[in-house]
């Protein structure tokens, strides 16, 4: 099965945001938008839900906290309790620094791992080149081309209001 996309190439941020918004509102299925940097108004224009990575980070941080608190109490208080100058075996204040570091370490690694899983990025991944200049100075809007009834003339007219530079069709094997 092959996916086909209808692409509009723009050269600035405000045009791509406006074009994306009007295209979605006109009922087309937006496949994705490709930009050389993170355009802050795009997620809203594309109708993307807000990222839930914050919660993922919190969950991993709590995991790090639990592991740190459990292992310190278990190591220093249960498995091999060492008497240091008669101090209590379970000295919570002394365990805080390691707990804090584990919260940060697990949160950081967890959010990195989740980002790669969620965006399906991995070393050596090959992805269809939408436009060679998209990592330089071009902004590309890709619309799903599902059937032959797709009205290319109408969408071209729509995009021309927003100074589209180039229009092309792309098929993914």
């Amino acid at each position, binding site marked *: 099965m092959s996916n086909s996309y209808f692409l509009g190439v723009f*050269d*600035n*941020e*405000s*045009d791509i945001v406006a074009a994306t918004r009007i295209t979605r509102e006109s009922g087309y299925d937006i496949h*994705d938008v*490709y*930009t*050389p*940097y*993170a355009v*802050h108004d*795009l*997620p809203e224009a594309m109708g*993307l839900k807000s*990222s839930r*990575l*914050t919660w993922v*980070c919190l969950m991993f*941080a709590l995991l790090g906290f639990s592991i740190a608190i459990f*292992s*310190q109490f278990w*190591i*220093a208080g249960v*498995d*091999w309790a*060492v008497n*240091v100058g008669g101090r209590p075996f379970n*000295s919570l204040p*002394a365990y805080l*620094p*390691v707990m*804090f*570091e*584990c919260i*940060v*370490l697990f*949160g*950081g*690694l967890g*959010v*990195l791992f989740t*980002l*790669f899983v*969620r*965006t399906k*990025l*991995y*070393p*050596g*991944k*090959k*992805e*269809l*080149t*939408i436009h060679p*200049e998209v*990592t*330089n*100075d071009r902004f590309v809007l890709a619309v799903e081309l599902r059937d032959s009834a797709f009205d290319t003339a109408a969408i071209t007219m729509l995009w021309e209001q927003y100074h589209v530079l180039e229009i092309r069709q792309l098929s993914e094997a």
Partner: protein
Amino acid sequence: MASTAPEKEDPTAPAPVLGPGQTYTTVTQKISSIITSRTPLGWIIGVALALGLMQCFALGVTWLLIKGVGVWGLNVPVGWGWAIINFVWWIGIGHAGTLISAILLLMRQNWRNSINRFAEAMTIFAVICAMQFPLLHTGRPWIAAYWLLPYPNSMGVWPQFRSPLIWDVFAVSTYFTVSLIFWYIGLIPDFATLRDKAKQKVSRVIYGILSMGWRGSAKHWHNYEMTSLLLAGISTPLVLSVHSIVSFDFSVGLVPGWHATIFPPYFVAGAVFAGFAMVLTLALPLRAVYGLHDFITDRHLNNMSKVMLATGLIVAYGYGMEQFYAWYSASTYEGYMMQNRTWGPYSFEYWMLILCNVAVPQLLWIKWVRLNPIMLFIVSMFINVGMWLERFIIVVTSLHRDYMPSSWDMYRSTPWDWLLYIGTIGIFLLGMLLFIRVMPVINIVEIRLLVPRKGHDKKPDHDASADASAD
């Protein structure tokens, strides 16, 4: 255009963070040309120098492992010497990188965009250098696993979690890991740019692998931005915790001169102070050699100098408070320690420290000094030396005159101390030089955010007026 003219005429407006006339394409070209151009002779000389210095490291380590830590200048009252001094010095240098990449990101300081990548790389290599010392001071690093990591030794005894030294292991390893993640995440879109610009197949393949198939998809950017923000959010308390924990190595101990509550903030400020000095020490020659004046502008020099001045004043306050508490505590030992530090056998080092860290940085009040690269370089070198001396003074003068005068002794470093220290400078330089040659030294994607927008009358994302108040 009438709408842009008044801005230029406003004399109170801050200097731009990006040179005039830059577009997305010129930014990409200029920064990637550092990598794609022919290897400059200066770079080769620099690498040769760095490799030469690394030979010192090899020599120092070999002799250390054959003979043990007795080859260093340590003696009975001064059981901690150059290893801890160098460790703290290097860790401190790393802190500017995280401050620039995380704290200034959260504060929306857009001038950070052109120095963050470089400063983050500095953090990574400085922490690598720092980690050599705790590892090597054990004398037998191959069996150090159960002294440093939570792994029980052959008798089932675990590390001591009440000890600041084990806190340090967690702090430094977390700091290194999170800094590396942050740095790599930032590099992914830039690797994609380099992949698409690469003319040779080899570089296309290598940058292709490193860029993980990045295509600038808005769905990816959406999660990517959130990741950056979260990493910045967790790195900010992390960077404060790391040098606080390093200061606990001293302040948790009951030694006069170490046991002070001022240590954590004083160490964190000192770290940022030293780190910015090192950023300038490296960025000023880099800017001159590669002609990066459009990216590292006068505004950057000015702002970095102001951060150095502010943190330098905090450090000076720390020195003042140490003197004050020695008197105010009315403790005989504290009082004697401070008198010995100021007027004793190491008074030359103490007053050199005051010269380097307190007197010379006052030149940064003068705008001409802040904007003059040569003057700024000289001031930074003073601070680099001064911050090393600070750790020397804290470690040695607090220890060398013990409670019992019969055990007093002087501390003198040996050539083996010098070889290891100089050797880590070689590791650092080699790392930085390789980084400059193969990776974009300035964050291309974030510089695009500073390029004036085309088409509509829209200013860059974080416009100049928004952050003028912070300058």
